[in-house]
C-alpha cells in the first residue's frame, strides 16, 4: 500500500464544528409552523384483549387529534422481516407499552394529562416472560410454537466425537437485556399533504427502512414518502427499527390532522417502550482431548425476542455464526432459536447477537481449560483458527491472520504473566482481590451470508458546480464518523483535498439506498462503493478531455467546474455486486458468512472489594486487527466507546423486569458508567496486511462490544476462584454466590458440568 495523504489521517469531523458550537440540529431542535405535538397511549398489561377504552373527564377532547388502528390508510404493520408487528394494537396487546392510541395537541403540556385520563379495560391473557416459559409451550403467544426463527449449523460428524473425547465439558451461560441509552431520545416530525405525500424528519439509523414501512402503513407510492435524517444523538442499533414505529405514528397524526406533528419521547418512555439487547442463554457441550484440543461440540443458543419478530432472525443469525468464537471446530452442531415473550421486542444493539454468544464461548474456554488442566492462555493457543482452516459455517480463512501473535502481544502489553503471578500471591491476604482475564474473539463485517447480495446497495457521487464533489448515500452519521470517513475515501481516491468533498444529508428524496447503517458495513462495503463511484467522476472528466491523467486538486476543481458549467451537474453511481466466488447457503447455513472478520484479544484487570463485593476494572488492554485504520482518532473513539458500553453491560447495566415491563426506566436507576467509573482503556491496532473494503479497512464499530464481558468475568473468576456465568454481574450477585459457596463449602470448580471419561 502506498502512503495516503488523507486516508489514515485524523482529519476534522465533517459535522464537528456544528457539534461543538451547539449549532447541530437534532430532531427536537426543529419546529415547523402550526405544528402539533404527539403522544402515545400504551398498553399497561403484558397480554390481553382490549375490552373498552374510556376517555376521562376534564379534558377538552375536541381539541385533540386522536388516531387509532382504524385510521390507518394502509396495512397496520411495521414492515421489516415478518409483518407481524402492528403499528397500533387493534383489539389485542402482546406486550406492556404497546402503542394503542395516538393523541396530538398544539400545547405539548396538555398531552401527559390527557394520556393519564384514558383508561383501558383489558381481558387479561396468560403471558410468557422467559425463554424457558416460552419453550414450555404451555401458552402459545406467537405462531405455532413461540419460535420466531431457528438455525441449524452442522459441520463434520458431531455424533461421532463423544466417544473419542477425553473430557466432555458442559456449561450454561446467560446474558441480560441492555438498553442502548443513546443520550438523545427518539423523536420524529411528520408532515403530510396530498401532493407531496408524507415527509418525516427524525433521529434514525436507516432511512430506507422507514421509507418502506411508511409506504405500506400509509398506502403511498415510493415517491410520496420522504425520510430525512436529522443529526442523530447516538443510536448503537437502538435507532435501527423502532424509528419506523415512531415515524409511522407521527405520519398517521399528520395525515389525520393535516398539520406537522412532532413526537419526542422522554427518557422514561424511550427506555420502557423501545428495544433493548436480546437476553440470551447459551449451552455448550464440548468434546476435548487430554491435550486440550477441541474435537467438537454442540452449542445451543437461544435469545428472547420479545413479542414480535422485528430483527430477531438477524440478531440470532449473527449470534449463531459467532458462537464458535475464533477457534477451530472440526465438528460442530449449533442449534439456535429466537423465542417469543410478552416483553417489548428486543432489537438491534451494537454487536447484534455476537456479544451474547461470544461471552458464552469465552467463559466456556475457561471452563475447558480448568477441566483439562491447562492455562487459559494455552487452551486458546491450541484451538485458534489458522489461515486455511474453516469456521463453523465452513468458511475458509483466507486472511493472513495470526491469532497467537495477537495473543502474545496483548499479553505483553498487559503484562499478563507477571500480574497473574503477583495477584495469586497477594490475594491470599486482605479483603481486596485482584484478577486478570483474557478474551479472544472475532467479528464479521458486513451483512451476514447473502445479506449484502440481497441489499444490492447503491451510492452516488456528484460533481458540483463549484468544482467540489458530493457523496450521496443513505448511510447515516450518528457519532461513528460515517460522513468523515466516506469523504476521506473520496478525497483520497480522487487526489483531492478533504475539504473538496462534501456529503449530502441522508434524505431519501435525494440519496440512493446504500443500505442500512448497521453491521459494521459502512466503511467496508459502502466505502468501497463510494470509491468506485468517485472513480466514475474522474473517468468522465478525463475521457471528456477536461482533465489530464495527472492533476492537482486545483486542476480537478477547475476541470469539474468547467465540465459542470458546460454539461450540468452529474452523478456517478456504483452498485454492490457480490463476488461470484462467494458461496453462502441460506438453507444449510453454510459458506462465506462474512466478507471479512476483525480479530481481537482483550485483557482485563479487576479488583474485587470483599467489603462491598464490587468489581472495579483497573486496566483494559484492547488489541485488534481491523485491516487498515482510516482515521486513527475515530477508530480509537469507536473502540473506547464500545468498551465503555461493554463494561456497562458486564458490571452495571441491569434491566429490572416485572411482568414484561422495565421497572428502572430512568437514568437514575438504570446505571451506565460515568467518567469516574472507567479504567484507562488502552487501545492498540495490529495491521496484518489484510485487504478489504476501501483502502483495506474492515468493520470496526461492533467489535469492541464483544470483548469486555468475557475478559472481565474471566478476571473476576481469577480474582475470587469462583465461577460466574451470567451478566450483568452486580455486587449483590457476587455476594449471594460467595454466601452460598461458603455454605456448601464446595471447592470453587466442583459444581457440575464436567464428566470425565
Amino acid at each position, binding site marked *: 500500500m502506498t502512503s495516503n495523504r488523507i486516508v489514515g489521517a*485524523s482529519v*476534522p*469531523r465533517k*459535522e*464537528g*464544528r*456544528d*457539534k*461543538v*458550537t*451547539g*449549532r*447541530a*440540529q*437534532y430532531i*427536537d*431542535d426543529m419546529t415547523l409552523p402550526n405544528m402539533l405535538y404527539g403522544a402515545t397511549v400504551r398498553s399497561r398489561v403484558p397480554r390481553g384483549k382490549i375490552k373498552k377504552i374510556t376517555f376521562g373527564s376534564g379534558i377538552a377532547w375536541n381539541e385533540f387529534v386522536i388516531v387509532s388502528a382504524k385510521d390507518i390508510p394502509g396495512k397496520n404493520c411495521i414492515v421489516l422481516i415478518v409483518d407481524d408487528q402492528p403499528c397500533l394494537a387493534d383489539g389485542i396487546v402482546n406486550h406492556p407499552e404497546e402503542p394503542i392510541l395516538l393523541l396530538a395537541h398544539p400545547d405539548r403540556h396538555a398531552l401527559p394529562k390527557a394520556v393519564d385520563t384514558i383508561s383501558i379495560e383489558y381481558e387479561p391473557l396468560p403471558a410468557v416472560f422467559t425463554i424457558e416459559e416460552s419453550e414450555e409451550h404451555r401458552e402459545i403467544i406467537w405462531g405455532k410454537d413461540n419460535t420466531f426463527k431457528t438455525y441449524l449449523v452442522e459441520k463434520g460428524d458431531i455424533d461421532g466425537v463423544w466417544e473419542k473425547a477425553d473430557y466432555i465439558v458442559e456449561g450454561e451461560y446467560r446474558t441480560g437485556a441492555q438498553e*442502548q*441509552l*443513546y*443520550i*438523545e*431520545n427518539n423523536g420524529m416530525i411528520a408532515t403530510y399533504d396530498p401532493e407531496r405525500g408524507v415527509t418525516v424528519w427524525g433521529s434514525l439509523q436507516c432511512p430506507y427502512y422507514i421509507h418502506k414501512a411508511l409506504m405500506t402503513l400509509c398506502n403511498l407510492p415510493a415517491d410520496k414518502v420522504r425520510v430525512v435524517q436529522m*443529526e*442523530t*444523538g*447516538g*443510536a*448503537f442499533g437502538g435507532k435501527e427499527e423502532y424509528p419506523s414505529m415512531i415515524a409511522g405514528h407521527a405520519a398517521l397524526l399528520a395525515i389525520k390532522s393535516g398539520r406537522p406533528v412532532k413526537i419526542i419521547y*422522554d*427518557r422514561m418512555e424511550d427506555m420502557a417502550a423501545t428495544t433493548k439487547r436480546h437476553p440470551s442463554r447459551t449451552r455448550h457441550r464440548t468434546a476435548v482431548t487430554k491435550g486440550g484440543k477441541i474435537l467438537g461440540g454442540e452449542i445451543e443458543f437461544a435469545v428472547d425476542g420479545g413479542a414480535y419478530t422485528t430483527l430477531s432472525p438477524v440478531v440470532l443469525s449473527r449470534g449463531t455464526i459467532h458462537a464458535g468464537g475464533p477457534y477451530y471446530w472440526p465438528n460442530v452442531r449449533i442449534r439456535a432459536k429466537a423465542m417469543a415473550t410478552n416483553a417489548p421486542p428486543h432489537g438491534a444493539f451494537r454487536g447484534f447477537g455476537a456479544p451474547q454468544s461470544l461471552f458464552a464461548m469465552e467463559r466456556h474456554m475457561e471452563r475447558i481449560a480448568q477441566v483439562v488442566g491447562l492455562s487459559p492462555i494455552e487452551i486458546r493457543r491450541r484451538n485458534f483458527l489458522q489461515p486455511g482452516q474453516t469456521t463453523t459455517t465452513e468458511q475458509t480463512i483466507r486472511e493472513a491472520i495470526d491469532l497467537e501473535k495477537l495473543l502474545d502481544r496483548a499479553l505483553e502489553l498487559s503484562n499478563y504473566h507477571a500480574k497473574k503471578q503477583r495477584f495469586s500471591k497477594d490475594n491470599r491476604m486482605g479483603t481486596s482481590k485482584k484478577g486478570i482475564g483474557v478474551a479472544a474473539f472475532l467479528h464479521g463485517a458486513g451483512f451476514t451470508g447473502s445479506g449484502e447480495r440481497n441489499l444490492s446497495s447503491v451510492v452516488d457521487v456528484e460533481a458540483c458546480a463549484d468544482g467540489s464533489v458530493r457523496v450521496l448515500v443513505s448511510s447515516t452519521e*450518528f*457519532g*461513528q*464518523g460515517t460522513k468523515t470517513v466516506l469523504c476521506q475515501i473520496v478525497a483520497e481516491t480522487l487526489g483531492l483535498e478533504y475539504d473538496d468533498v462534501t456529503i449530502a444529508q441522508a434524505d431519501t428524496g435525494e440519496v440512493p439506498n446504500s443500505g442500512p447503517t448497521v453491521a459494521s458495513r459502512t466503511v467496508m462495503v459502502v466505502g468501497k462503493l463510494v470509491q468506485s463511484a468517485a472513480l466514475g467522476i474522474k473517468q468522465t472528466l478525463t475521457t471528456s478531455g477536461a482533465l489530464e491523467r495527472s492533476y492537482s486538486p486545483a486542476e480537478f476543481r477547475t476541470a469539474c467546474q468547467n465540465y459542470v458549467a458546460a454539461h450540468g451537474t452529474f452523478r456517478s453511481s456504483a452498485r454492490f455486486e457480490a463476488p461470484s466466488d462467494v458461496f453462502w447457503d441460506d438453507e444449510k447455513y453454510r459458506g462465506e458468512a462474512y466478507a471479512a472478520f476483525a480479530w481481537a484479544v482483550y485483557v482485563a484487570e479487576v479488583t474485587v472489594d470483599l467489603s462491598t463485593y464490587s468489581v472495579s476494572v483497573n486496566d483494559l488492554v484492547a488489541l485488534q486487527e481491523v485491516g487498515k485504520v482510516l482515521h486513527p*482518532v*475515530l477508530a*480509537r*473513539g469507536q473502540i*473506547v*466507546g*464500545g*468498551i*465503555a*458500553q461493554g463494561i456497562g453491560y458486564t458490571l452495571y447495566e441491569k434491566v429490572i423486569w416485572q411482568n414484561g415491563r422495565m421497572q428502572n426506566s*430512568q*437514568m*437514575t436507576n438504570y446505571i*451506565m458508567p*460515568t*467518567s*469516574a467509573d*472507567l479504567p*484507562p*482503556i488502552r487501545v492498540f491496532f495490529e495491521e496484518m496486511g489484510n485487504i478489504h473494503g476501501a483502502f483495506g479497512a474492515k468493520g470496526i464499530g461492533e467489535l469492541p462490544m464483544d470483548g469486555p464481558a468475557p475478559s472481565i468475568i474471566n478476571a473476576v473468576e481469577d480474582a475470587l476462584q469462583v465461577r460466574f456465568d451470567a451478566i450483568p454481574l452486580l455486587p449483590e450477585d457476587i455476594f449471594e454466590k460467595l454466601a452460598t459457596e461458603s455454605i456448601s463449602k464446595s471447592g470453587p470448580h466442583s459444581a457440575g458440568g464436567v464428566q470425565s471419561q
Partner: protein
Amino acid sequence: MTTNISSGGRAKCELSFTVNGERRTVRVHPMERLLDVLRQELALTGAKEGCAEGECGSCSVLMDGALVNSCLVPILQAKSANIVTIEGLAAGAQLNCLQEAFLDFGGAQCGICTPGMILAASHLLQRNPQPTIGDIREGLSGNLCRCTGYVQIFDAVAKAVQFKART
C-alpha cells in the same frame, strides 16, 4: 392574600436575565424550566434534554458562573441571572480552546452530550486551571456520554489546558 409577593405567581410573568451577554426578557410561567425557556422562547437549542432529572448533564448551562442542570431550574430562579450557554462560548467564528480541542481529539462523537460536556469542562477549568486526570474525571462525572467512553474527552480537556497555558 395579604403577603406582598415580590415576584412570580401562577400566571405568565415577565422576567429578564442575561444570556450570553445579552439582556433578554421573556413572558412565561414562573415554573417553566430554564431549559425550555432557552430552547423554546429564545431558540437556543444547544442545551438538550436527555433525562429531565439531573442525571445526564446534557442540559448544562452556566448560571452566574456555576454549572447547573437547566432542566432543574424554574425560570423564576434565573431572574436577573447571568446565563451562558454553548452558543455563547465561541467568540464569533473563533472557537473557544475547549471547542477546538474537542474537535481535534475526538471529544465529540454523536455530539448530543457535547454542549453540556464542554460547559462542564469550562466550569472545571475556571475553578481549577490545572486539573489532574482525577479532577477531570470528577468534574465531568455529572455529564453522561454514551459514545466516547470519555477517554478522548479527557484528552481534549487536557489539551485545552495546554493550549491555555501557552496563550
